[in-house]
Structures are given as structure tokens and as C-alpha cells.
């Protein structure tokens, strides 16, 4: 049997589908919702980036890592080794996601990527540091220590009070002949032993009650200090929490 029917043109096929209601026009609401969801996604990712960067900054200061470059090359070495690379990688991935989401807005794709990327990075870093200077993270950290922060509580306890072998941070309880006794955030009493070569990049005037960062090898409860520096009291609010009863 010979088929005399001519093959349909694209126009005929498309119009046939439209007329038979196989395809329908999407309502305006669908596109409005899509735009709203995109904006919500963008701001949620933005908030997450700000949280993460401020959290990284909080972790660096709370653990004392932030102050290590002040101890010279050796300090820089430990600084890079102890950086929370996993959190930094997560932050970079989030920034990339933000850029991809931002590229859907015409005011972003009309300009070279470098502008939007730099703007996102700058806003994230400056915003992150501003948030870190507020009582937001220390407040959450305090709640985490008291067990009142079920969500992210373990992350705060882990990153806010890390235990490193070569960096200690605490409050001077007693000045002794060859060093100090310091109380760390996790309530340990350590003896810091000074030597001739111990560096004091910000001066030797350290008194009882000062918060200090000590870089050096730890053996049991003794730290042989390679460097000691006093730091600001921003984190004292959670050092003053009532201590657990000693047994």
C-alpha cells in the first residue's frame, strides 16, 4: 500500500499539538514562583556563606590559630597545618553556587564574571568578619557548652574548643618562676615553661588574668613554649562559665 500522505511540516506538528491541548501554556504564576524560589535560594546560600565564614573566623580566634603568624615562619607553618580546610572548601563551594545562582539575574550576566565573583567574595568576607565580631557565635558556643544547642552543638564544641598538640589558649592563673600556669577553655591546668628562645612578639608583660596563646610542644600538662602572646578578651564571656565540679 502506498502512503500518499505528505509528511507534516514542523509548523503543522507544533500547531497540531497546541490545538489538541497536548501542550499547555505555563501560567504567569509559575514563572513568578520560579523567580521567587531563585531569590530565596540565592539569599539562603548567601546567609549560609556568611555564617560559614564568620564561623571559620570564630574558630580561628577561639582556638588561637589566628594569632600564629605573629610567631614567624614556624607560626605560619602551624597556621596552615591547622586551618579548617574542610570548612574553607565548603565555603568556596557555596561561593561558587552563589555565583551560579547570581548568573541567572540579568544585571549579573551582563557584566564579566570577575566583577560578580569579586563582589560576592568581598561581601562574604567583610560580612563574615562583621558577624564574627558580634556576640552571635560566642552566644551559640555558650549554649552548645551547656547542651542547649541540639542543632550544630557538636560542631560548636568541636570547633570552638579544639584540642591541638602545639597551640594552647587560656587564661593565666599564676605567674611562676620559669613561666605560667594557664587554665584552658576546656578546664585543663597547664604549665607553660619559658626558655631563652621563647618569642614574645607583643611584649613580655603578661600578668595573672591575661588571655594568652602559647605555641609549643606539649608533654602531659607541660608546654615548652616556642612563642607566647597576649590576645584580646573577646572570648572571655565563655571562659567565665561555671566550671564543672572537680572529682
Amino acid at each position, binding site marked *: 500500500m502506498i502512503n500518499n500522505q505528505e509528511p507534516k511540516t*514542523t*509548523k503543522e506538528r*507544533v500547531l497540531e499539538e*497546541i490545538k489538541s491541548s497536548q*501542550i499547555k*501554556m505555563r501560567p504567569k504564576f509559575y514563572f513568578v514562583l520560579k523567580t521567587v524560589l531563585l531569590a530565596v535560594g540565592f539569599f539562603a546560600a548567601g546567609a549560609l556563606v556568611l555564617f560559614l565564614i564568620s564561623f571559620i573566623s570564630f574558630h580561628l580566634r577561639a582556638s588561637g590559630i589566628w594569632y600564629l603568624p605573629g610567631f614567624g615562619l614556624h607560626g605560619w607553618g602551624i597556621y596552615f597545618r591547622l586551618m579548617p580546610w574542610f570548612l574553607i572548601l565548603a565555603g568556596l563551594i557555596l561561593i561558587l553556587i552563589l555565583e551560579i545562582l547570581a548568573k541567572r539575574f540579568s544585571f549579573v*550576566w551582563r557584566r*564579566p*564574571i*570577575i566583577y560578580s565573583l569579586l563582589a560576592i567574595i568581598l561581601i562574604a568576607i567583610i560580612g563574615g568578619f562583621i558577624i564574627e565580631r558580634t556576640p552571635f557565635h560566642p552566644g551559640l558556643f555558650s549554649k552548645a557548652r551547656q547542651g542547649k544547642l541540639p542543632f550544630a552543638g557538636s560542631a560548636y564544641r568541636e570547633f570552638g574548643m579544639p584540642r591541638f598538640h602545639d597551640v594552647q589558649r587560656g587564661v593565666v592563673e599564676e605567674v611562676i618562676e620559669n613561666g605560667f600556669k594557664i587554665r584552658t577553655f576546656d578546664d585543663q591546668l597547664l604549665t607553660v615553661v619559658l626558655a631563652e628562645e621563647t618569642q614574645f612578639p607583643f611584649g613580655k608583660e603578661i600578668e595573672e588574668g591575661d588571655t594568652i596563646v602559647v605555641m609549643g610542644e606539649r608533654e602531659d600538662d607541660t608546654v615548652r613554649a616556642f612563642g607566647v602572646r597576649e590576645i584580646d578578651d573577646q572570648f572571655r564571656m565563655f571562659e567565665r562559665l561555671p566550671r564543672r565540679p572537680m572529682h
Partner: protein
Amino acid sequence: MRDEISRQKVKDEEIALLIQSGKIEFFDILLERYEEKIRRYSRKFLSDHEDINDVLQDIFIKTYKNIRSFDVKRKFSPWLYRIAHNELINALKKKKKNPLPLFDLDVFLPHHLSDNNDLGEQIERREMAELIDKCLGKLEPKYREPVILYYLEELSYKDIAEVMRVPISTVGIRIKRAKEIMRTICKKLGYL
């Protein structure tokens, strides 16, 4: 009324507005106006006749489905070419045929854009259009697309930027580089 609108050369944007309001019978005017243009555009990326017909059908069905997202205050043709651009990229990806790169320095960094509307450029546009048919196949897709849209479809840099979602200066730099590459290719092939 439909024939009258078709004859009167009513603007695409006005027809789109009528379709948005539910007068779907006007969609075939847009189909008539753009079927050949989009077919010609698709032919520069796909060679198989059936593939081109399938992509063309998908492009117009997507156009119809999404027409309510079109802002009638803007130009219709870049919006339609954008849909075509996306469908062609998908078709090329399915065929694993070197679609546009994920990352490109042309889009990353700012470039200086020279004026493209002088008389010399208009003359060159005609000359280039003649060469394109002979040498276009050798160009990378990222250069091929702005060249087709500019020299064959006669879209402006601004409209091409809308289609490709890249800065206008990137369109300028890609067309400039494409011209240089095409001249070299055409010389090698003996057309210049």
C-alpha cells in the same frame, strides 16, 4: 483578523501579548515568521535533517509553553533565539559534540568594546556573510554562534548578548577573534 495581523506586519511583541492573553490562534504567525530563520540557525550546528526538525519542534513547543514569561516590553527575537540556543546546546550535548565551554576567560574578564555600527562595518558584514557559508564549519561553537547571529541573522551585539547570556564586550571580542580565525581559514581554503 489573523490574516490582517499577519499582513500588517504587526510587531512580534504585540502578537506575543495576544497569545499571552489566550488568543493562541496567533501563534502560527510567529511560527511563520521564525521557522525558516531558526531552521537556518540550527543548520549551522546540526547536520542531520531529522535532528534539525526535532530540535525545531522542541524550540517552538518550548516557546509556546513559556510565552507568559516573555516580557513584551523587550524584543521578542533575542528571547526566541535564547530558547533555540539552549535547545541546540542540549542537542549537541546528547551527541557529545563539543558544546560551549563551561569556563571561558572571554566571559570572566572585562574587554574593551569598539563601535560596530559604522558604514565600514556594514559593508564588511555583507562580505563576511558570503564567506561564512564557506568557512564556518571550521570554527569552534563559541565563535560560530555570535558570527551566525551577527552576520546571518543580523542581530545586534546587545541582542546576541541576550541570547548567549554573556556581556556585550564578550560578544564583541568573540566576533573580532572569529573574523581573524575565519580569514585564516578562508585563505587556507583558497577563498581569499
